[in-house]
């Protein structure tokens, strides 16, 4: 049983309830125990940082202080939301890089009877923990209904693989962790070129035209690969791609129908759980077709659609870089 402190973030209670439900449903089978940080507050998303420095970092750090108090030897905090994960990790990192910031933040925390020593906690994203701690073998062993034939586009968005202060991910632009996990579920994973491109973030509220274009790029690219469903790991990405898809279609006169769900929902599906219990049905772009596809018993493996042009003849391709786990940069340094 792997035990972690858990910082759910605001969306998990409302717009990303499907994420929360499915996570709780799959946590048990894979032996993931999550202890919620008590009375946590909002991380400020991408908004507070743009207003004022110390208050923004104090807001984030209240959570770090609460978590470190609750830690009891367990120093890893897991966050499922990209923005929460980044904000917590960023505050911890910058207070180390720039000790002055740590002093100012602690001055503020003192007013609430709290304190936090930068570097005490280790902030990790849910996917990181799933792939590197729980392990793909464990996940694979729980699969009873492989997602055979389901073409899934892995979509991570920006803030999980970047800026990646601790070098936890295999790559900043083309990380393979989500691909590996979906692969373990038996899905047919698309080599999705935009897997870490932006979903628009808060732009639907600020410059909707900008946001619609960003959403269009992702959905249309996924569509060219004949994707059945997109898997994401961030409430905001899911919200933008799912809830604003209709509006985007209207804006450009397009007619995409691309369901977007959380990767934990697909895990639940593969684990044989009831789609209802893992948040299916709450998406605005219905995932029914994709579900039907899995319901079919081992559909014929259709030699699928427009993969990258890779021919057996002609000049050989360079060999892929040997798979690198987390702490990639550190390894490179040692090699030097």
């Amino acid at each position, binding site marked *: 049983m792997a035990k972690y402190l858990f910082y759910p973030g605001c969306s998990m209670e409302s717009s990303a309830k499907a994420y929360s439900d499915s996570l709780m449903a799959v946590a048990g089978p894979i032996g993931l125990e999550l202890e919620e940080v008590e009375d946590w507050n909002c991380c400020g998303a991408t908004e507070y940082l743009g207003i004022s420095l110390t208050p923004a970092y104090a807001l984030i750090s209240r959570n770090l202080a609460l978590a470190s108090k609750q830690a009891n030897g367990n120093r890893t905090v897991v966050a499922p939301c990209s923005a929460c994960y980044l904000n917590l990790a960023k505050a911890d990192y910058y207070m180390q890089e720039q000790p002055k910031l740590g002093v100012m933040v602690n001055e503020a925390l003192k007013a609430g009877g709290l304190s936090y020593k930068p570097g005490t906690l280790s902030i990790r994203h849910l996917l990181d923990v799933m792939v590197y701690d729980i392990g793909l073998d464990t996940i694979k062993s729980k699969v009873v209904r492989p997602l055979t034939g389901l073409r899934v586009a892995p979509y991570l968005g920006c803030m999980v693989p970047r800026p990646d202060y601790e070098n936890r991910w295999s*790559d900043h*632009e083309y990380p393979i962790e989500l691909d590996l996990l979906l692969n373990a579920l038996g899905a047919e994973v698309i080599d999705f*070129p935009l897997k870490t491109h932006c979903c628009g973030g808060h732009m639907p509220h600020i410059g909707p035209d900008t946001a619609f274009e960003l959403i269009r790029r992702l959905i249309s690219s996924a569509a060219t690969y004949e994707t059945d469903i997109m898997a994401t790991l961030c409430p905001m990405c899911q919200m933008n791609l799912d809830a604003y898809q209709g509006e985007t279609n209207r804006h450009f006169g397009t007619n995409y129908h691309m369901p977007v769900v959380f990767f934990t929902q697909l895990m639940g599906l593969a684990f044989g759980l009831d789609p209802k219990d893992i948040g299916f049905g709450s998406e605005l772009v219905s995932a029914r077709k994709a579900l039907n596809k899995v319901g079919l018993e081992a559909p014929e493996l259709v030699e699928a659609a427009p993969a990258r042009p890779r021919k057996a*003849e002609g*000049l*050989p391709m*360079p*060999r892929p870089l040997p798979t690198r786990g987390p702490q990639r940069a550190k390894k490179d340094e040692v090699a*030097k």
Partner: protein
Amino acid sequence: MTKHNGSKPEVQERIGVYVCHCGTNIAGTVDVVQVAEWAASRLKTRGVVIARDYKFMCSSLGQELIEKDIKELGLTRVVVAACSPHLHEKTFRTACARAGLNPFLCEMVSIREQVSWVHTDKEAATIKSQAAVSGGVERVIHHEALEPLTVPINPATLVVGGGIAGIQATLEIADAGHHVYMVEREPSIGGHMAQFDKTFPTLDCAACILTPKMVDVGGHPNVTLMTWSEVEKVEGYVGNFSVTVRKKARHVKTEDCTGCGICQEKCPKKVIDEIYEAGLGYRKAIYTPFPQAVPRFPVMDVDNCIYFEKGTCKACEKFCPTNAINFDQQDEIVTLEVGNIILATGYDIFDARRVSNYGYGRLANVFTSLEMERLTNAAGPTNGNIVLRDGKTVPEAVGIIHCVGSRDRNFNNHCSVICCMQSLKFAHMVHERTGAIVYNFYIDMRTPFKDYDEFYQRVMEEGTLFVRGKVAEVTDATRLPGEEGKLIIQVEDTLAGKQRRIPVDMVVLSVGLQPRQDSNETAKLFGISCSANGWFIEKHPKLDPVATMTEGIYIAGCAQGPKDIPASVSQGAAAAARVLGKIEQKEMALEPVRASVIEEKCSGCRICNDLCPFNAITFHEDRMVTEINAALCQGCGTCVAACPAGAIYGTGFNNEQVLAQIEGLLLLNVGDEPVPA
């Protein structure tokens, strides 16, 4: 040990102190006049009879000043306070010798590198300089007249690395009539240059200018060529190195092989050639990397050979007309005796797969510059046709990206020097061979040196489109109409201030040069230093670019830092000139810093016996004393420090000298009462 209670015994020596201004280099921070005056007055009782300051002590006038004082004032010791002894110790010792004073009675103290250049407080710097002079004076009192040790210089030279720099060095020395051993780890010499097609800015064919030199090396009576070989151990010192080389088993008897190539023809195993063809072409499991290879003998790649894998095949053996194949051949260990060594071990290219946003390895039509060299080379996998990875489609638009992996803190900080010119060369060749539209994406265009900028002008005239901006990404994810089926280069055109998406068919990444991945181990093996990122460090970046801190070891070519072919050739020739100079001297004077045992004091405790890594210490059981072989001793002084009886004497760094210097540095010698000036 000296007594020192403020009333030291009068010193018998007559010491001269010379303080250098070094223009304003020293005088700008240190009050040199004050230092000289202080030495003259406060160190009078310590034997100082004259103290002078002078603008440039190292100038001939400065040296004459010292010589004149030695002769006229009868100086018996000289202290020069100036720059680092590593720069001018020899200068001042020679000056002393000219005036009839044993050169080892001169001591240099550094008040430039270790005082004026690192401190800003003038008062503190002046006091520190006084202390340094004081330490030097106390030390020099205990100096002895010494005769330099001389060692004969073995005229044979080892050159490591058979690229163009090593080839040049080898030929210079061999043509001068001295023997050269050339060790190369690949099956053929030629290095990276052998892979190139054209060379900038003149567009000479690389093979046409390189092959004759390779042939010269291969057939030279003064050259022993050892390819498919690696240096394993280096012992000894300048003049007399003993180098152990592993000749890897070729599984081909070179004495019988005629280089006819039938074995390669018959070998059934095809392997991607990662080295010579940069992964774009194939070779066999028994192969010579390219037709003009020197030597002409193939090597067997046992990791891929079917016989070594499965126990059957031996096609090469069956067809070899001279029975030159030998499956049982073993590695051979050879020891070479050489006087000097030149390291020309070259560079690695940056691994473009690390810049994942450029898609190399993921997007088929993204190529590296080395692949592009092979594509343009008439002897390459496409016979010199510039085509996409499908092997046939001629691109209509090509984007060439500069600075890939260079000038980037995420990868290599340095500028790789050759990429701008190399990229311009590719632009020219794509124009010439395909008529495609060519874009060059650069951060800064760097075209120094003869005829380079003229070449840039020429490529501009040919119609290459230049975009100033570091490319953000190369992608096949289309976004706009017209992008389908293309690679899109997304970049900020910084001169227009706008983001652009430029569709092309082919992308060439001008990857940087970086130190050999094992350059640190190589440096350790030869006892030289590497910079933090792995380039070999030269003795002086401007004035001694091919020598190293270790006598007898020289460096040339890209192992020292990124450079182009002309610069590599120059360095190869320069290193050869340095070696030839040493060979001409026939013998070489070494610092007489050696340890010796004072037999009467030796108690035979044998503590020192295990401390010498050079096996210079032997113990005589019969007399129960230890002896040090001066020829083997390198003068580190570890045994001197270890001897509990003080029975080992370290010439040049004896206990009295060091202890006296400590006292001098701490100003214990000047007594309590300031002596009026």
